[in-house]
């Protein structure tokens, strides 16, 4: 009894979570532009291939996500390693600095950066987008690396130095392999946050540089073209496929390791 209640509850939540996604995917195959079903068609996927504004939005979204997550990861790794060595007030200061963007509402990050860029006369566009995305995603990278670093035995690094390794070499051979899972998940979080961001981008772009989120927002207010449904479906499926592959690989690896042990 109790058990089936639990399952029903879980089921309802899953249905609510997926209802809008189902609707979007369904309407991406709708023959008509309106929200009433007029028959199955691939029309919007074909038109997608010819729509320059959606394509350019996709391109900017990916450029910003790649560049900002790579910069955020590099800065974040360097910072995390150093923060781990800091003690006392300095450490608290840097950590507080890290929490500010995390605990500030998106809208405040967005407008304060916008005021910064206008004050120092940086023209809005790709550059401002990348700078602002790095700003809000670096803390996530740091926080996903820190727990790994705390588990690290500091003596191994010292030992490597004593044995004549250069600091960079020692970092690559001793520290990096240990924190790598944290680095990868940090980079992944930065990447997805950048792709999904709307609010910060909304205030920090202009001059024809649009990301998909901004494109969708301006369209949602005048009827979203089903081409956007189509591209959202494609992005969503890509991520589902990537996640499935990663998971299958991970579980295989786990099994293999289990056998070896």
């Amino acid at each position, binding site marked *: 009894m109790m058990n089936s209640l639990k399952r029903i509850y879980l089921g309802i939540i899953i249905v609510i979570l997926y209802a809008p996604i189902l609707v979007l995917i369904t309407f991406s195959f709708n023959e008509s532009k309106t929200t*009433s079903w007029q028959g199955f068609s691939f029309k919007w996927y074909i038109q997608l291939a010819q729509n320059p504004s959606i394509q350019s939005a996709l391109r900017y979204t990916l450029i910003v996500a790649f*560049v900002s997550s790579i910069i955020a990861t590099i800065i974040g790794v360097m910072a995390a390693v150093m923060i781990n060595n800091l003690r006392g007030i300095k450490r608290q200061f840097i950590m507080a600095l890290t929490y500010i963007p995390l605990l500030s509402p998106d809208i405040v990050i967005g407008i304060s950066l916008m005021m910064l860029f206008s004050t120092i006369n940086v023209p809005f566009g790709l550059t401002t987008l990348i700078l602002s995305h790095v700003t809000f995603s670096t803390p996530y990278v740091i926080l996903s690396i820190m727990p790994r670093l705390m588990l690290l035995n500091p003596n191994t690094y010292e030992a490597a130095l004593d044995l004549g390794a250069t600091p960079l070499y020692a970092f690559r051979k001793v520290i990096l392999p240990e924190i790598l899972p944290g680095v990868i998940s940090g980079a992944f979080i930065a990447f997805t946050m950048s792709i999904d961001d709307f609010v910060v981008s909304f205030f920090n772009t*202009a001059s024809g540089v649009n990301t998909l989120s901004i494109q969708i927002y*301006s369209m*949602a*207010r*005048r*009827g979203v073209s089903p081409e956007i449904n189509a591209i959202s479906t494609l992005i969503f499926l890509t991520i589902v496929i990537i996640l499935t592959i990663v998971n299958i690989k991970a579980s295989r690896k786990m099994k293999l390791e289990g056998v070896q042990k």
Partner: protein
Amino acid sequence: MKKCSILLLGVMFSLAGCSGEANNNVVKVYNWGDYIDESTNRMFEEETGIKVIYEVFPTNEEMYAKVSNGNATYDVLIPSDYMIEKMINEELLTKIDMTKIQNYQEIDDDFKNLPYDINNEYSVPYTWGTMGIVYNTSMIDEEIDEWADMWNPKYENQIFMYDSERDAIMVALKKLGYSMNTKDPSQLEQAKQELIAQKPLVLAYVGDEGKGKMENGEAAMMLAWAGDAELMIGNNPDLKYVIPKEGTNYFVDAMVIPKNSENYDNALKYIDFMCRPDIAALNMEYIGYSTPSSAARELLPDEMKNSEVAYPDLDLINKEMFTDPSSMLETYSRIWTEVKAASK
């Protein structure tokens, strides 16, 4: 891992490359949403080799906020009359060299020397129109012909208002019989009270998304521009457009070049191209608004060319044009916030 990152970098640079090459010969256009047949942009690109970077705004005010802060660079803007007046006053626009706009001669004299740009130095008209009420005859039996009908309790939760402070206040002022450019505090106060009184009847304050909803029968009545109405009626013949007898806003949207434009010559070519009758006709057919060029109107399909929605007899309408609102912005914003914050 290394391979992975090299691959990533490769993808990144190729992506960056695609966008980088485009930056040389472009024209950046900032226009209203749903306000162009985008194929005309492609035709312009093919004819001139200039790439069009196209972006849209939802209201004059949002366009102004973005452009006036100086760090957004566009080459062609298409604001409305009063906004052009304001931007000329604030020296945000640059003069257009009319000798380079050969098709300027195609624009009818009715749309030249208008008060917002009395000497035709800064703007080239793109469209014009009126604002009125679109209503669904399958949901409303009676004849709608005045703004007061939008206050009829019979239509509770069946009315879409436009989510734009200036247009909403215009409706209330006109209903009261005042000028829509009034600066008289007591008249504006009355207009505010009207809008608050109307709120319980309003289903939603919509932007352009209201058009599709209206076609689907989501609401019975909507505040709309004639051009949008023209298209909506095309999609749903039950809809009807009226210009209320109390009078309404008559507007002209025109192409202008902002002072910080980086591609002045391309902007001129773009403006000239958009004035060409065949191109203007393509655009008007797509967006449903009215062209200021008789030559372009001649090229439209008959039902559009003779449409009373798009081309009403201007002499018969009690019409007024918006003027520079700069000194009133705080007041308008305050009124609108009070309306929005009022409980339904």
